[in-house]
């Protein structure tokens, strides 16, 4: 192949070539949809045509061998057409309703369960972790796998009050959009980074490094003769941004890295406006291979939510109705000073009224 002249800036292939005939024909002319069973959607067009989507879970890390399996299934059931979702599930696009059961059976047999639609827990948006990233406070795929093994029943059923979106990110860069999820798990560093004064001068630009600190904790300093930096411990909140711009400032710490849990974020505009996730568990220990403390904590949050929220009430909407004091009571989670914001807009998060439940 590589004989042919070098091509650049061609951009992605045009999507049209990937659309199945039923979509080409009814493009933009869909009338409504139904969700007959978990993981199955049917979209009905003005023309009366029907498109069946069967959604299956993936670990997101996919071996090309598995991709070929999906391709084979697509050929067998969907005239070769499939897609992936914004939450990393795979969707098979059928026109023949009668083939759905067989497809689902094959998928389950291959270990890719069908579900994630409607008021369920869909796949966890997540990140690289120890598999590929340098700033990970914990692994991503392992935590996600451990969680979804436990939350599995909520993926293959649709019994929750509303959609429950879970996200995971392995460091404060938050590549998984944990900042706006119903439940978010965030890897956190909790110690001031160690500075490698020997390599720093070679590896990093001081101005960029100093500018990288959100709290201005980094000061220039001369360490055994060489230009380096000093970190004001009391100003450091371990975000790791210095490490992002300078590998000689080591943020990873086997003993003190851990996980934190956040709830009540939301992206859609449905009913209530989009909002950020809020801290509910500041720190949990980093315990591979199964992170039992984290799994328990998330499971507990899901259960309390499921037991108390009203129909069509997202996690955030439920908490706002009952109020945060009640949330901490119901979940039994301790409220600490760590929960109280102390960054730039902290004052905006204080309760500035006497409207309280006593």
């Amino acid at each position, binding site marked *: 192949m*590589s004989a042919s002249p070098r*091509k*650049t800036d*061609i*951009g*992605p292939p*045009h*999507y049209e*070539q*990937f659309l199945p005939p039923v*979509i080409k024909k009814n493009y*933009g002319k*869909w009338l409504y949809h139904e969700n007959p069973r978990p993981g199955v959607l049917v*979209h009905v067009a003005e023309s009366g045509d029907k498109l069946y989507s069967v959604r299956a*879970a*993936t670990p*997101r890390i*996919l*071996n*090309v061998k*598995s*991709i070929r399996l999906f*391709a084979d299934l697509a050929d067998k059931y969907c005239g070769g*057409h*499939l897609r*992936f979702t*914004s939450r990393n599930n*795979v969707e098979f696009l059928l026109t023949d309703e009668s083939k759905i059961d067989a497809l689902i059976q094959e998928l389950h047999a291959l270990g890719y369960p069908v579900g994630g639609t409607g008021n369920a827990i869909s796949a966890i948006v997540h990140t690289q972790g*120890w*598999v*590929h*990233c*340098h700033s*990970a406070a914990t*692994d991503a*795929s392992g935590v996600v*796998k451990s969680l979804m*093994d436990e939350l599995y029943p909520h*993926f293959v059923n649709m019994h929750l009050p509303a959609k429950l979106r879970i996200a995971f990110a392995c460091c*404060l*860069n938050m*590549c998984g*959009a944990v900042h*706006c999820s119903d439940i978010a798990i965030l890897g956190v560093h909790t110690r001031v980074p160690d500075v490698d004064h020997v390599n720093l001068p070679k590896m990093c630009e001081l101005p960029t490094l100093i500018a*990288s600190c959100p709290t201005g904790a980094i000061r220039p300093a001369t360490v055994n003769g060489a230009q380096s930096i000093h970190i004001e411990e009391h100003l450091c909140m371990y*975000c790791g941004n210095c490490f992002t711009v300078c590998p000689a400032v080591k943020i990873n710490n*086997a003993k003190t890295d851990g996980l934190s849990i956040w709830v009540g*974020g939301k*992206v*859609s*505009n*449905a*009913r209530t406006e*989009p909002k950020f996730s809020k801290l509910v568990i500041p720190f949990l220990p980093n315990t*591979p*291979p*199964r992170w039992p403390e984290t799994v328990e904590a998330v499971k507990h949050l899901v259960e309390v939510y499921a037991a108390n929220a009203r*129909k069509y009430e997202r996690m955030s909407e439920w908490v706002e109705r009952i109020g945060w004091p009640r949330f901490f009571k119901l979940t039994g989670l301790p409220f600490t000073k760590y929960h109280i914001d102390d*960054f730039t*807009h902290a004052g905006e998060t204080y309760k500035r009224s006497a409207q309280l439940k006593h």
Partner: protein
Amino acid sequence: MSEKKRETPLLDELEKGPWPSFVTELKKSAETPVIQDLLGQLERSYEEHLGHWKHGGIVGVMGYGGGVIGRYSDLPEEFPNIAHFHTMRVNQPAGWFYTSDALRKIADIWEARGSGITNMHGSTGDIILLGTTTDQLEPIFSELTNIGFDLGGSGSDMRTPSACCGPARCEWACYDTLAAVYDFTQTYQDELHRPAFPYKYKLKFAGCPNDCVASVARADMSFIGTWKDEIQMDADQVRQYAASGRIDIQKDVCERCPTQCMSWDGNNLAIDNGECVKCMHCINVMPKALRPGKERGCTILIGSKAPIMGGALLSSVFVPFIEMEPPYEDIKELINAIWDLWGEHGKNRERVGEFIQRVGLGNFLEQIGLEPVPEMIAYPRTNPYIFFGEELHEKQA
């Protein structure tokens, strides 16, 4: 070392349980030295609670500044086959639609020249080809372009735009998200491949306010479909929903409407569309009975991002309503104006959302020549620290 299979007792624990296992995915290529070392280093991380990757020099393909993330093991002696383990970001097709054929071609290339491990997909939307060596980057790139694929973004460039399935598979799409994401991606190929911005710039296209690509939280520019006129209603279908007993129209619909602009008398549903804020709830609950209006377009919001460094932001209203018709000239003019201003005055690693807050939304709008409208704010200023400047009294005079 990479000859004999490595023991991975901790990772093996993650092959148990009903959810598909990434470990199993890795082991599907257990025969390759690369995966042996990857499993080995990962098992080591699980033992030590510590990652073993470092970033080193920038790597990439000729003429591009983005699209490849350089990765190096910090234990190269023990795991020589992943000493270099770079990621290639491949720009996904709009809406993540594929044919089996296209997927097989990608699989073949990646199996031959890379680890054979992917992410479908990365959280910006790219196809992530996880792990190869520097010398393979060019050959892979040319083979990818030969099958019609190109790299995505990384670094301080426009990042790979993404879109929800939109009109291809959704009855609520208020504009053609696939046409839009394709057009903007093609228009800005240079900005996508050659980092020249203060920081990254992400575009996400959602066909309606449900925002299925999380654009309001994860895009410097969020295109969220919406409509201007009345919600389309099929009154019989409303009654059938009521009859079905599956939903209580008063409780589940009317009382959950954020503006309380609906009323249900047991037989007729009335919507005061002038008060409707297009939240989608009622439509979501009764898709057979209600649909977005006919005068469709989108709301453009700007500036969302993760916490680094000033704190996370959600996008804020930039253009309350605009029709989404190719070639999207007005929008492109706005984007160019923003990139010029931010490009010139933005600090290194300052996202556009942070830039706007630093210079002030009012000044920002003035600079790019957009009129301020109250839709852009939740409420007017509460503090009296108003920078009037000289204009004020010139105006008076």
